[in-house]
């Protein structure tokens, strides 16, 4: 299972990460910020990490 580290403090709820995640791993909380919904589905493509403008997501620790 991929280790997904989220830094919610820097997240601005833009929605790019869960918008681009091809496997539905990420979702938003009620403020729109990123949360990990389905970690088992992560294929470590790092699309979320590369496209997060706010440096909030690290895949693989």
């Amino acid at each position, binding site marked *: 299972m991929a280790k997904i580290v989220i830094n919610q403090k820097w997240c*601005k709820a*833009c929605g790019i990460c869960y918008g681009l995640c091809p496997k539905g791993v990420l979702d938003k909380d009620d403020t729109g910020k990123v949360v990990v919904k389905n970690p088992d589905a992560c294929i470590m493509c790092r699309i979320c990490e590369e496209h997060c*403008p*706010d*440096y909030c997501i*690290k895949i693989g620790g």
Partner: protein
Amino acid sequence: MLKDIEKLLRQDKMPHIWCPGCGNGIVMKAMLEAINSTGIDTKKTVVVSGIGCSSRATGYMNFDTLHTTHGRALAFATGVKLAKPELNVFVVTGDGDGSAIGGNHLIHAARRNIDINVVMFNNNIYGMTGGQYSPLTPHGKFATTAPYGNFDRAFNICDLVKGAGATFIGRGTVFHTKVLTEMIKGAIENKGFSFVEAVSICPISYGRRNKMGTAPQMMEWLKENSVPVKAASKLPPEKVAGKILVGELYKEEAPEFTQKYDELIARFQKGAE
């Protein structure tokens, strides 16, 4: 990867000031990735910026950084590079900062082929002042100062710097992050004036006014409207018209300015012996 570049980020200054969904953070990350992967000496690296949203990047990058006056980053950077050619010099600029008020410095730095790597964050708008049209706002698009649509025609900024004499030109987008990183690496490796256009997104001041949707939707738009430059040559013209060409656009060998100057100095020193 983020964990590899964290050391190049001034983490105590984060989170950065950019709006939700702004592409600038992505471009800055591509720069840090490229710098990290080429292994250049980060103590001998200087990043210079002008004024505007993109130019705030210098505050977050852990090098010697210089946040100058509007449009003048390349002039300051020219002084840094010529005075100390052993430094790796980058310029971070925006479409307004770099192609309007700083346009003269851009063409002349390219003409000299001075070894500076320019990354132009192109979000098609003046974001910091709230959404006025820039020389890279496409014709017909809306801005606070183009309430009836933009009459101006936009520059093809990569063609402009090519005409001016740049020796490496590439384009990436905040969707095509790998291409973008590769282009910045190409810029670093080129010993001469290098220019990378980083097509970014500004959901707040450009996207909203032009009904382009949310940040993920603008990302989707970039994906749909970009064509790799290598593929473009094999496609019928109608498939390429109006598209953003991404990848390496131009490369040539030419004498570099500071090297020529150092050769002149060496000539005098030899004469003195």
